[in-house]
Protein backbone atom coordinates (compact mmCIF):
# COMPACT_ATOMS: atom_id res chain seq x y z
CA UNK A 1 0.00 0.00 0.00
CA UNK A 2 1.30 3.41 -0.87
CA UNK A 3 1.06 6.29 1.56
CA UNK A 4 1.83 9.97 1.28
CA UNK A 5 5.17 9.10 2.88
CA UNK A 6 6.24 7.35 -0.31
CA UNK A 7 5.37 10.47 -2.25
CA UNK A 8 7.48 12.62 0.08
CA UNK A 9 10.32 10.13 -0.36
CA UNK A 10 9.97 10.38 -4.14
CA UNK A 11 10.37 14.16 -3.94
CA UNK A 12 13.17 13.92 -1.36
CA UNK A 13 15.10 11.24 -3.25
CA UNK A 14 14.90 13.32 -6.43
CA UNK A 15 16.41 16.26 -4.59
CA UNK A 16 19.15 14.38 -2.75
CA UNK A 17 20.30 12.40 -5.79
CA UNK A 18 20.48 15.41 -8.07
CA UNK A 19 22.08 17.44 -5.26
CA UNK A 20 24.72 14.75 -4.91
CA UNK A 21 25.38 14.80 -8.66
CA UNK A 22 25.62 18.57 -8.95
CA UNK A 23 28.05 18.73 -6.02
CA UNK A 24 30.44 16.53 -7.99
CA UNK A 25 31.40 19.66 -9.93
CA UNK A 26 32.65 21.42 -6.82
CA UNK A 27 36.28 22.29 -7.56
CA UNK A 28 36.05 21.11 -11.17
CA UNK A 29 33.74 23.60 -12.87
CA UNK A 30 34.54 25.16 -16.26
CA UNK A 31 34.89 28.56 -14.61
CA UNK A 32 34.92 29.61 -10.98
CA UNK A 33 31.53 31.31 -11.24
CA UNK A 34 29.99 28.01 -12.40
CA UNK A 35 31.58 26.06 -9.55
CA UNK A 36 29.76 28.43 -7.27
CA UNK A 37 26.49 28.35 -9.20
CA UNK A 38 26.36 24.55 -9.16
CA UNK A 39 27.31 24.43 -5.49
CA UNK A 40 24.37 26.74 -4.95
CA UNK A 41 22.01 24.50 -6.90
CA UNK A 42 23.29 21.53 -4.96
CA UNK A 43 22.84 23.30 -1.62
CA UNK A 44 19.25 24.16 -2.52
CA UNK A 45 18.52 20.56 -3.49
CA UNK A 46 20.11 19.11 -0.34
CA UNK A 47 18.12 21.65 1.66
CA UNK A 48 14.89 20.58 -0.07
CA UNK A 49 15.72 16.93 0.55
CA UNK A 50 16.33 17.58 4.25
CA UNK A 51 12.96 19.27 4.73
CA UNK A 52 11.15 16.55 2.80
CA UNK A 53 12.89 13.72 4.68
CA UNK A 54 12.19 15.48 7.97
CA UNK A 55 8.49 15.65 7.09
CA UNK A 56 8.50 12.01 5.99
CA UNK A 57 10.25 11.00 9.23
CA UNK A 58 7.70 12.91 11.24
CA UNK A 59 4.83 11.09 9.52
CA UNK A 60 6.60 7.77 9.84
CA UNK A 61 7.22 8.22 13.54
CA UNK A 62 9.30 5.80 15.61
CA UNK A 63 13.04 6.32 15.24
CA UNK A 64 12.90 7.65 11.67
CA UNK A 65 15.15 10.64 10.96
CA UNK A 66 16.18 12.50 7.82
CA UNK A 67 19.54 10.74 7.84
CA UNK A 68 18.07 7.27 8.37
CA UNK A 69 15.94 7.85 5.30
CA UNK A 70 18.78 9.24 3.21
CA UNK A 71 21.59 6.95 4.35
CA UNK A 72 20.03 3.67 5.39
CA UNK A 73 17.76 2.80 2.46
CA UNK A 74 19.08 0.77 -0.45
CA UNK A 75 18.84 1.60 -4.17
CA UNK A 76 15.68 -0.46 -4.61
CA UNK A 77 14.02 1.69 -1.93
CA UNK A 78 14.96 4.97 -3.60
CA UNK A 79 12.10 6.58 -5.52
CA UNK A 80 13.90 9.19 -7.64
CA UNK A 81 13.56 9.55 -11.38
CA UNK A 82 16.27 7.55 -13.13
CA UNK A 83 17.23 10.72 -15.04
CA UNK A 84 18.67 12.23 -11.89
CA UNK A 85 21.07 9.44 -10.97
CA UNK A 86 22.90 9.32 -14.32
CA UNK A 87 26.56 10.34 -14.33
CA UNK A 88 27.56 13.56 -16.11
CA UNK A 89 28.31 11.89 -19.42
CA UNK A 90 26.71 9.97 -22.25
CA UNK A 91 25.29 6.46 -22.13
CA UNK A 92 27.77 4.03 -20.55
CA UNK A 93 27.47 1.08 -18.21
CA UNK A 94 27.57 1.53 -14.45
CA UNK A 95 31.26 0.77 -13.96
CA UNK A 96 32.55 2.68 -17.00
CA UNK A 97 34.65 5.80 -16.43
CA UNK A 98 34.42 8.96 -18.51
CA UNK A 99 35.09 12.69 -18.18
CA UNK A 100 32.29 14.84 -16.83
CA UNK A 101 30.44 16.70 -19.56
CA UNK A 102 29.00 20.06 -18.58
CA UNK A 103 26.36 19.85 -21.32
CA UNK A 104 24.89 16.72 -19.73
CA UNK A 105 24.76 18.48 -16.37
CA UNK A 106 23.09 21.57 -17.76
CA UNK A 107 20.56 19.74 -19.93
CA UNK A 108 19.55 17.50 -17.03
CA UNK A 109 19.16 20.44 -14.66
CA UNK A 110 17.07 22.18 -17.28
CA UNK A 111 14.75 19.25 -18.00
CA UNK A 112 14.20 18.59 -14.30
CA UNK A 113 13.78 22.17 -13.13
CA UNK A 114 11.40 22.84 -16.04
CA UNK A 115 9.19 20.16 -14.49
CA UNK A 116 9.73 21.10 -10.86
CA UNK A 117 8.79 24.78 -11.20
CA UNK A 118 5.32 23.50 -12.10
CA UNK A 119 5.31 20.74 -9.51
CA UNK A 120 6.30 23.07 -6.66
CA UNK A 121 3.87 25.69 -7.87
CA UNK A 122 1.03 23.16 -7.67
CA UNK A 123 2.19 21.71 -4.36
CA UNK A 124 1.80 25.08 -2.68
CA UNK A 125 -1.86 24.00 -2.48
CA UNK A 126 -1.08 20.60 -0.98
CA UNK A 127 -3.39 19.39 1.78
CA UNK A 128 -0.21 18.72 3.76
CA UNK A 129 0.62 22.17 5.09
CA UNK A 130 4.27 21.25 5.69
CA UNK A 131 4.66 20.13 2.10
CA UNK A 132 2.92 23.29 0.89
CA UNK A 133 5.46 25.38 2.81
CA UNK A 134 8.39 23.37 1.45
CA UNK A 135 6.95 23.83 -2.05
CA UNK A 136 6.77 27.60 -1.69
CA UNK A 137 10.44 27.75 -0.66
CA UNK A 138 11.52 25.25 -3.31
CA UNK A 139 9.67 27.10 -6.06
CA UNK A 140 11.86 30.17 -5.60
CA UNK A 141 15.02 28.08 -5.64
CA UNK A 142 13.94 26.00 -8.62
CA UNK A 143 13.07 29.10 -10.63
CA UNK A 144 16.70 30.11 -10.25
CA UNK A 145 17.88 26.62 -11.27
CA UNK A 146 15.68 26.83 -14.35
CA UNK A 147 16.97 30.26 -15.20
CA UNK A 148 20.59 29.20 -14.78
CA UNK A 149 20.32 25.99 -16.79
CA UNK A 150 18.18 27.54 -19.53
CA UNK A 151 20.67 30.36 -20.05
CA UNK A 152 23.49 27.88 -20.42
CA UNK A 153 21.43 25.60 -22.66
CA UNK A 154 20.93 28.51 -25.06
CA UNK A 155 24.57 29.58 -24.86
CA UNK A 156 25.73 26.06 -25.62
CA UNK A 157 23.20 25.37 -28.34
CA UNK A 158 23.79 28.69 -30.06
CA UNK A 159 27.50 28.96 -29.13
CA UNK A 160 30.24 27.16 -31.02
CA UNK A 161 30.04 24.12 -33.27
CA UNK A 162 31.45 22.00 -30.47
CA UNK A 163 29.11 23.29 -27.79
CA UNK A 164 26.15 22.82 -30.12
CA UNK A 165 27.13 19.22 -30.80
CA UNK A 166 27.63 18.52 -27.10
CA UNK A 167 24.32 20.10 -26.13
CA UNK A 168 22.48 18.19 -28.86
CA UNK A 169 24.11 14.92 -27.77
CA UNK A 170 23.06 15.58 -24.17
CA UNK A 171 19.50 16.34 -25.26
CA UNK A 172 19.40 13.14 -27.32
CA UNK A 173 20.79 11.15 -24.41
CA UNK A 174 18.59 12.56 -21.67
CA UNK A 175 15.25 13.34 -23.28
CA UNK A 176 14.07 9.69 -23.27
CA UNK A 177 14.44 9.60 -19.48
CA UNK A 178 11.87 12.39 -19.15
CA UNK A 179 9.16 9.95 -20.32
CA UNK A 180 9.22 8.70 -16.74
CA UNK A 181 7.75 12.01 -15.60
CA UNK A 182 4.45 11.15 -17.28
CA UNK A 183 3.79 7.65 -16.01
CA UNK A 184 1.87 7.30 -12.77
CA UNK A 185 3.37 5.47 -9.80
CA UNK A 186 1.29 4.06 -6.92
CA UNK A 187 2.82 6.67 -4.60
CA UNK A 188 1.80 9.52 -6.88
CA UNK A 189 -1.67 8.04 -7.33
CA UNK A 190 -2.17 7.77 -3.57
CA UNK A 191 -0.87 11.28 -2.99
CA UNK A 192 -3.15 12.75 -5.65
CA UNK A 193 -6.13 10.92 -4.16
CA UNK A 194 -5.26 12.34 -0.72
CA UNK A 195 -4.89 15.84 -2.25
CA UNK A 196 -1.34 15.89 -0.95
CA UNK A 197 0.30 15.46 -4.33
CA UNK A 198 -0.46 16.76 -7.78
CA UNK A 199 -1.11 15.05 -11.07
CA UNK A 200 2.11 15.43 -13.03
CA UNK A 201 0.44 14.33 -16.26
CA UNK A 202 -1.55 17.55 -16.24
CA UNK A 203 1.71 19.52 -16.29
CA UNK A 204 2.88 18.01 -19.54
CA UNK A 205 1.66 20.74 -21.91
CA UNK A 206 3.32 23.44 -19.79
CA UNK A 207 6.57 21.47 -19.61
CA UNK A 208 6.49 20.79 -23.37
CA UNK A 209 6.03 24.47 -24.09
CA UNK A 210 8.91 25.47 -21.84
CA UNK A 211 11.23 22.83 -23.28
CA UNK A 212 10.30 23.38 -26.92
CA UNK A 213 10.73 27.10 -26.65
CA UNK A 214 14.16 26.81 -25.03
CA UNK A 215 15.35 24.18 -27.50
CA UNK A 216 14.25 26.38 -30.41
CA UNK A 217 16.12 29.37 -28.99
CA UNK A 218 19.14 27.13 -28.50
CA UNK A 219 18.83 25.95 -32.15
CA UNK A 220 18.57 22.36 -30.89
CA UNK A 221 16.14 19.70 -32.00
CA UNK A 222 13.99 17.49 -29.87
CA UNK A 223 14.44 13.79 -30.60
CA UNK A 224 11.53 11.42 -31.09
CA UNK A 225 11.43 8.56 -28.70
CA UNK A 226 9.75 5.18 -28.52
CA UNK A 227 11.09 2.54 -26.20
CA UNK A 228 11.79 1.63 -22.59
CA UNK A 229 10.43 4.13 -20.13
CA UNK A 230 12.55 4.23 -16.98
CA UNK A 231 11.02 3.25 -13.66
CA UNK A 232 13.24 4.77 -10.99
CA UNK A 233 10.31 6.19 -9.12
CA UNK A 234 9.01 2.70 -8.38
CA UNK A 235 12.47 1.54 -7.30
CA UNK A 236 13.72 0.01 -10.56
CA UNK A 237 16.85 2.02 -11.29
CA UNK A 238 19.75 2.18 -13.69
CA UNK A 239 23.11 0.62 -12.81
CA UNK A 240 24.32 4.03 -11.72
CA UNK A 241 22.33 4.56 -8.53
CA UNK A 242 24.01 1.88 -6.44
CA UNK A 243 27.40 3.49 -7.13
CA UNK A 244 26.10 6.90 -6.21
CA UNK A 245 24.54 5.62 -2.98
CA UNK A 246 27.54 3.44 -2.17
CA UNK A 247 29.69 6.54 -2.15
CA UNK A 248 27.15 8.74 -0.41
CA UNK A 249 26.15 6.26 2.30
CA UNK A 250 29.40 4.36 2.94
CA UNK A 251 30.80 6.41 5.80
CA UNK A 252 27.46 6.77 7.60
CA UNK A 253 26.84 3.04 7.29
CA UNK A 254 30.30 2.18 8.61
CA UNK A 255 29.29 3.94 11.85
CA UNK A 256 25.63 3.10 12.41
CA UNK A 257 24.25 4.91 15.41
CA UNK A 258 26.99 7.57 15.37
CA UNK A 259 26.04 11.23 15.60
CA UNK A 260 27.83 13.73 13.38
Amino acid at each position, binding site marked *: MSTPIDYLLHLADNAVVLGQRNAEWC*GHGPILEEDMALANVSLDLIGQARLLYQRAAELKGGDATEDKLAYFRGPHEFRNYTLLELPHHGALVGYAAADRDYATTIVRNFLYSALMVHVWDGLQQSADASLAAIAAKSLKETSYHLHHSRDWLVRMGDGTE*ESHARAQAAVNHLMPYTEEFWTTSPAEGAAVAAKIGIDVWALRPAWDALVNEALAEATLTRPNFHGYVTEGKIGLHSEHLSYLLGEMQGLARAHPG*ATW
Partner: protein
Amino acid sequence: MYTQAMDIPDDSGKKLAAVSNATSEQEAAFEARIDADGRIEPQDWMPEAYRKTLVRQISQHAHSEIVGMLPEGNWISRAPSLKRKAILIAKVQDEGGHGLYLYSAAETLGTSRDQMLEGLHSGKAKYSSIFNYPTLNWADVGVIGWLVDGAAIMNQVPLCRCSYGPYARAMVRVCKEESFHQRQGYEALLVMMKGTDEQRAMVQDAVNRYWWKCLAMFGPPDADSPHSAQGMRWGIKRISNDDLRQKFIDATVPQAKVLGVTLPDPDLKWNEARGHYDYGQIDWAEFWNTVEGNGPCNKERLATRVKAHNDGQWVRDAAQAYARKQKERALKEAA
Protein backbone atom coordinates in the same frame (compact mmCIF):
# COMPACT_ATOMS: atom_id res chain seq x y z
CA MET B 1 40.52 29.43 3.59
CA TYR B 2 43.71 30.33 3.91
CA THR B 3 46.96 31.85 3.30
CA GLN B 4 50.37 30.85 4.34
CA ALA B 5 52.60 33.73 5.08
CA MET B 6 52.50 35.59 1.81
CA ASP B 7 56.17 35.95 1.47
CA ILE B 8 56.97 32.66 -0.15
CA PRO B 9 58.97 33.75 -3.14
CA ASP B 10 57.92 32.50 -6.53
CA ASP B 11 59.35 32.94 -9.99
CA SER B 12 57.19 35.90 -10.81
CA GLY B 13 58.55 38.04 -8.01
CA LYS B 14 62.29 37.64 -8.10
CA LYS B 15 63.27 41.09 -9.23
CA LEU B 16 61.60 43.73 -7.21
CA ALA B 17 63.96 46.60 -7.94
CA ALA B 18 61.87 49.76 -8.07
CA VAL B 19 61.51 51.13 -11.57
CA SER B 20 62.14 54.82 -11.32
CA ASN B 21 59.73 56.38 -13.77
CA ALA B 22 58.02 58.41 -11.14
CA THR B 23 58.47 62.00 -10.19
CA SER B 24 59.92 62.60 -6.81
CA GLU B 25 56.65 64.24 -5.71
CA GLN B 26 54.73 61.03 -6.51
CA GLU B 27 57.17 58.94 -4.57
CA ALA B 28 57.10 61.34 -1.68
CA ALA B 29 53.29 61.31 -1.63
CA PHE B 30 53.26 57.49 -1.61
CA GLU B 31 55.83 57.29 1.18
CA ALA B 32 53.97 59.89 3.21
CA ARG B 33 50.72 58.00 2.91
CA ILE B 34 52.39 54.76 3.94
CA ASP B 35 54.02 56.49 6.91
CA ALA B 36 50.67 57.94 7.95
CA ASP B 37 49.15 54.43 7.78
CA GLY B 38 46.84 55.60 4.99
CA ARG B 39 45.32 53.55 2.19
CA ILE B 40 46.67 53.24 -1.35
CA GLU B 41 43.91 52.96 -3.97
CA PRO B 42 44.10 51.52 -7.53
CA GLN B 43 44.25 54.93 -9.23
CA ASP B 44 47.07 56.14 -6.97
CA TRP B 45 50.68 56.11 -8.08
CA MET B 46 52.65 53.29 -6.49
CA PRO B 47 56.17 51.94 -6.91
CA GLU B 48 56.43 49.06 -9.34
CA ALA B 49 57.90 46.81 -6.66
CA TYR B 50 54.93 47.50 -4.38
CA ARG B 51 52.53 46.62 -7.20
CA LYS B 52 54.39 43.41 -8.04
CA THR B 53 54.62 42.32 -4.45
CA LEU B 54 50.91 42.85 -4.00
CA VAL B 55 49.98 41.02 -7.20
CA ARG B 56 52.12 38.11 -6.09
CA GLN B 57 50.69 38.07 -2.60
CA ILE B 58 47.03 38.53 -3.56
CA SER B 59 47.19 36.03 -6.41
CA GLN B 60 48.92 33.47 -4.15
CA HIS B 61 46.10 34.02 -1.73
CA ALA B 62 43.44 33.65 -4.46
CA HIS B 63 45.07 30.47 -5.79
CA SER B 64 45.14 29.10 -2.24
CA GLU B 65 41.41 29.59 -1.91
CA ILE B 66 40.77 27.76 -5.19
CA VAL B 67 43.20 24.90 -4.67
CA GLY B 68 41.92 24.73 -1.09
CA MET B 69 38.52 23.71 -2.43
CA LEU B 70 39.96 20.34 -3.46
CA PRO B 71 41.02 18.67 -0.19
CA GLU B 72 37.69 19.42 1.46
CA GLY B 73 35.73 18.85 -1.73
CA ASN B 74 37.09 15.32 -1.48
CA TRP B 75 34.57 14.60 1.32
CA ILE B 76 31.42 16.29 -0.01
CA SER B 77 30.07 13.15 -1.66
CA ARG B 78 30.72 11.09 1.47
CA ALA B 79 29.65 13.47 4.24
CA PRO B 80 28.02 11.28 6.91
CA SER B 81 24.88 13.38 7.38
CA LEU B 82 22.88 15.71 5.15
CA LYS B 83 23.46 18.59 7.56
CA ARG B 84 27.25 18.14 7.39
CA LYS B 85 27.07 17.74 3.62
CA ALA B 86 25.25 21.06 3.30
CA ILE B 87 27.69 22.80 5.68
CA LEU B 88 30.65 21.47 3.73
CA ILE B 89 29.28 22.45 0.32
CA ALA B 90 28.58 25.93 1.65
CA LYS B 91 32.07 26.17 3.07
CA VAL B 92 33.80 25.06 -0.11
CA GLN B 93 31.58 27.48 -2.02
CA ASP B 94 32.67 30.30 0.31
CA GLU B 95 36.30 29.50 -0.47
CA GLY B 96 35.48 29.83 -4.18
CA GLY B 97 33.93 33.20 -3.37
CA HIS B 98 37.10 34.27 -1.57
CA GLY B 99 39.04 33.31 -4.67
CA LEU B 100 36.75 35.52 -6.73
CA TYR B 101 37.09 38.61 -4.52
CA LEU B 102 40.83 38.17 -4.38
CA TYR B 103 41.23 37.77 -8.14
CA SER B 104 39.17 40.94 -8.49
CA ALA B 105 41.33 42.76 -5.96
CA ALA B 106 44.45 41.70 -7.85
CA GLU B 107 42.89 42.79 -11.16
CA THR B 108 42.75 46.36 -9.85
CA LEU B 109 46.56 46.23 -10.04
CA GLY B 110 46.46 45.57 -13.77
CA THR B 111 46.87 41.80 -13.95
CA SER B 112 43.99 39.75 -15.42
CA ARG B 113 42.53 36.62 -13.90
CA ASP B 114 43.67 34.70 -16.97
CA GLN B 115 47.25 35.85 -16.43
CA MET B 116 47.10 34.82 -12.80
CA LEU B 117 45.60 31.43 -13.67
CA GLU B 118 48.31 30.95 -16.24
CA GLY B 119 50.83 31.49 -13.44
CA LEU B 120 49.12 28.87 -11.28
CA HIS B 121 48.72 26.32 -14.05
CA SER B 122 52.29 26.62 -15.26
CA GLY B 123 53.55 26.07 -11.71
CA LYS B 124 55.16 29.53 -11.52
CA ALA B 125 52.78 30.93 -8.94
CA LYS B 126 52.55 29.38 -5.51
CA TYR B 127 49.58 28.61 -3.30
CA SER B 128 49.42 27.66 0.34
CA SER B 129 51.30 24.44 0.79
CA ILE B 130 48.85 23.19 3.42
CA PHE B 131 46.65 22.02 0.55
CA ASN B 132 49.30 19.63 -0.68
CA TYR B 133 48.45 17.16 2.07
CA PRO B 134 45.71 14.57 1.68
CA THR B 135 42.37 14.52 3.50
CA LEU B 136 42.26 10.93 4.72
CA ASN B 137 39.30 10.73 7.03
CA TRP B 138 36.11 12.69 7.63
CA ALA B 139 37.56 14.44 10.69
CA ASP B 140 40.07 16.14 8.38
CA VAL B 141 37.20 18.39 7.30
CA GLY B 142 36.63 19.54 10.88
CA VAL B 143 40.33 19.84 11.60
CA ILE B 144 40.90 21.93 8.47
CA GLY B 145 38.13 24.25 9.62
CA TRP B 146 39.48 24.49 13.13
CA LEU B 147 43.23 24.65 12.48
CA VAL B 148 43.74 25.64 8.84
CA ASP B 149 41.01 28.29 8.74
CA GLY B 150 42.14 29.22 12.25
CA ALA B 151 45.73 29.76 11.12
CA ALA B 152 44.45 31.63 8.08
CA ILE B 153 42.54 34.02 10.32
CA MET B 154 45.67 34.74 12.35
CA ASN B 155 47.49 35.52 9.11
CA GLN B 156 44.69 37.51 7.55
CA VAL B 157 43.22 39.64 10.31
CA PRO B 158 46.27 41.94 10.19
CA LEU B 159 45.76 42.21 6.42
CA CYS B 160 42.40 43.91 7.02
CA ARG B 161 44.64 46.92 7.84
CA CYS B 162 46.86 46.36 4.81
CA SER B 163 47.94 49.52 2.98
CA TYR B 164 46.31 48.50 -0.30
CA GLY B 165 42.61 49.41 -0.09
CA PRO B 166 40.99 46.73 -2.28
CA TYR B 167 42.97 43.96 -0.56
CA ALA B 168 42.20 45.26 2.91
CA ARG B 169 38.47 45.48 2.11
CA ALA B 170 38.40 41.98 0.59
CA MET B 171 40.10 40.69 3.74
CA VAL B 172 37.43 42.14 6.01
CA ARG B 173 34.74 40.08 4.33
CA VAL B 174 36.94 37.00 3.93
CA CYS B 175 37.96 37.04 7.60
CA LYS B 176 34.35 37.11 8.76
CA GLU B 177 33.63 33.97 6.76
CA GLU B 178 36.85 32.26 7.83
CA SER B 179 35.94 32.71 11.50
CA PHE B 180 32.58 31.17 10.76
CA HIS B 181 34.36 28.20 9.13
CA GLN B 182 36.66 27.89 12.10
CA ARG B 183 33.77 27.72 14.57
CA GLN B 184 31.88 25.25 12.39
CA GLY B 185 34.92 22.99 12.10
CA TYR B 186 35.50 23.06 15.83
CA GLU B 187 31.83 22.35 16.53
CA ALA B 188 31.89 19.32 14.20
CA LEU B 189 34.90 18.00 16.12
CA LEU B 190 33.21 18.55 19.49
CA VAL B 191 30.30 16.39 18.30
CA MET B 192 32.67 13.68 17.10
CA MET B 193 34.62 13.72 20.37
CA LYS B 194 31.36 13.09 22.24
CA GLY B 195 30.65 10.15 19.93
CA THR B 196 32.15 6.70 19.56
CA ASP B 197 35.76 5.61 20.15
CA GLU B 198 36.18 5.35 16.40
CA GLN B 199 35.03 8.93 15.91
CA ARG B 200 37.45 10.18 18.59
CA ALA B 201 40.26 8.22 16.95
CA MET B 202 39.47 9.89 13.62
CA VAL B 203 39.77 13.34 15.19
CA GLN B 204 43.07 12.53 16.89
CA ASP B 205 44.45 11.06 13.67
CA ALA B 206 43.53 14.19 11.74
CA VAL B 207 45.06 16.46 14.40
CA ASN B 208 48.25 14.40 14.35
CA ARG B 209 48.60 14.82 10.60
CA TYR B 210 47.66 18.52 10.42
CA TRP B 211 49.16 20.15 13.52
CA TRP B 212 52.72 20.62 12.33
CA LYS B 213 51.64 21.52 8.81
CA CYS B 214 49.49 24.29 10.24
CA LEU B 215 52.39 25.72 12.22
CA ALA B 216 54.41 25.82 9.01
CA MET B 217 51.60 27.80 7.33
CA PHE B 218 52.92 30.94 9.03
CA GLY B 219 56.00 30.73 6.87
CA PRO B 220 59.70 30.42 7.62
CA PRO B 221 61.18 31.78 10.85
CA ASP B 222 61.69 35.55 10.84
CA ALA B 223 65.44 35.13 10.60
CA ASP B 224 65.07 33.39 7.21
CA SER B 225 62.21 35.43 5.80
CA PRO B 226 63.55 37.61 3.01
CA HIS B 227 60.46 39.65 2.12
CA SER B 228 59.20 40.49 5.57
CA ALA B 229 61.10 43.69 6.23
CA GLN B 230 59.98 45.43 3.04
CA GLY B 231 56.43 44.08 3.50
CA MET B 232 56.30 45.56 7.00
CA ARG B 233 57.57 48.89 5.73
CA TRP B 234 54.82 48.95 3.09
CA GLY B 235 52.09 47.90 5.48
CA ILE B 236 51.46 44.74 3.43
CA LYS B 237 52.61 42.59 6.28
CA ARG B 238 51.89 43.74 9.80
CA ILE B 239 53.02 41.00 12.17
CA SER B 240 56.02 38.72 11.74
CA ASN B 241 55.73 35.00 10.95
CA ASP B 242 57.06 33.89 14.31
CA ASP B 243 54.79 36.24 16.26
CA LEU B 244 51.73 35.02 14.37
CA ARG B 245 52.73 31.42 14.88
CA GLN B 246 53.12 31.98 18.61
CA LYS B 247 49.77 33.72 18.78
CA PHE B 248 48.16 30.78 17.01
CA ILE B 249 49.72 28.22 19.32
CA ASP B 250 48.77 30.17 22.44
CA ALA B 251 45.17 30.41 21.23
CA THR B 252 44.91 26.80 20.10
CA VAL B 253 46.33 24.87 23.06
CA PRO B 254 43.36 25.66 25.35
CA GLN B 255 40.93 24.78 22.52
CA ALA B 256 42.63 21.40 22.11
CA LYS B 257 42.20 20.79 25.85
CA VAL B 258 38.48 21.53 25.70
CA LEU B 259 38.18 19.25 22.71
CA GLY B 260 40.10 16.47 24.43
CA VAL B 261 42.75 15.91 21.77
CA THR B 262 46.51 15.75 22.23
CA LEU B 263 48.65 18.07 20.13
CA PRO B 264 51.49 15.92 18.79
CA ASP B 265 54.41 17.85 20.26
CA PRO B 266 56.18 16.60 23.41
CA ASP B 267 57.93 19.97 23.75
CA LEU B 268 54.70 21.93 23.92
CA LYS B 269 54.65 23.53 27.41
CA TRP B 270 53.64 26.76 29.02
CA ASN B 271 56.63 29.00 29.66
CA GLU B 272 55.84 31.20 32.62
CA ALA B 273 58.75 33.56 31.99
CA ARG B 274 57.84 34.20 28.34
CA GLY B 275 54.10 34.13 28.94
CA HIS B 276 53.80 31.85 25.89
CA TYR B 277 53.84 28.17 25.01
CA ASP B 278 57.18 26.74 24.00
CA TYR B 279 57.02 24.33 21.09
CA GLY B 280 59.20 21.87 19.23
CA GLN B 281 61.13 22.06 16.01
CA ILE B 282 59.17 22.44 12.75
CA ASP B 283 60.44 20.25 9.92
CA TRP B 284 61.40 23.02 7.48
CA ALA B 285 63.08 20.65 5.05
CA GLU B 286 59.76 18.88 4.58
CA PHE B 287 57.98 22.24 4.27
CA TRP B 288 60.29 23.54 1.54
CA ASN B 289 60.22 20.23 -0.25
CA THR B 290 56.44 20.51 -0.42
CA VAL B 291 56.48 24.20 -1.39
CA GLU B 292 58.82 23.26 -4.22
CA GLY B 293 56.30 20.81 -5.61
CA ASN B 294 57.36 17.51 -4.09
CA GLY B 295 54.79 17.02 -1.35
CA PRO B 296 52.24 14.21 -1.20
CA CYS B 297 49.53 15.89 -3.33
CA ASN B 298 51.14 18.76 -5.27
CA LYS B 299 50.89 16.99 -8.59
CA GLU B 300 47.32 15.88 -8.05
CA ARG B 301 46.15 19.31 -6.91
CA LEU B 302 47.75 21.18 -9.77
CA ALA B 303 46.81 18.63 -12.43
CA THR B 304 43.20 18.75 -11.23
CA ARG B 305 43.08 22.54 -11.54
CA VAL B 306 44.63 22.35 -15.00
CA LYS B 307 42.22 19.64 -16.11
CA ALA B 308 39.17 21.55 -14.87
CA HIS B 309 40.39 24.60 -16.77
CA ASN B 310 41.16 22.73 -19.97
CA ASP B 311 37.97 20.65 -19.87
CA GLY B 312 36.01 23.86 -19.37
CA GLN B 313 37.52 25.64 -22.37
CA TRP B 314 34.66 24.72 -24.70
CA VAL B 315 32.12 26.01 -22.17
CA ARG B 316 33.85 29.38 -21.87
CA ASP B 317 34.24 29.50 -25.66
CA ALA B 318 30.52 28.82 -26.08
CA ALA B 319 29.62 31.67 -23.73
CA GLN B 320 31.88 34.05 -25.65
CA ALA B 321 30.63 32.94 -29.05
CA TYR B 322 27.04 33.35 -27.92
CA ALA B 323 27.70 36.79 -26.47
CA ARG B 324 29.34 37.84 -29.75
CA LYS B 325 26.38 36.59 -31.77
CA GLN B 326 23.96 38.42 -29.51
CA LYS B 327 25.91 41.62 -29.95
CA GLU B 328 25.94 41.24 -33.73
CA ARG B 329 22.20 40.59 -33.73
CA ALA B 330 21.60 43.71 -31.66
CA LEU B 331 23.76 45.75 -34.04
CA LYS B 332 21.91 44.39 -37.09
CA GLU B 333 18.60 45.25 -35.52
CA ALA B 334 19.75 48.74 -34.76
CA ALA B 335 21.00 49.24 -38.33
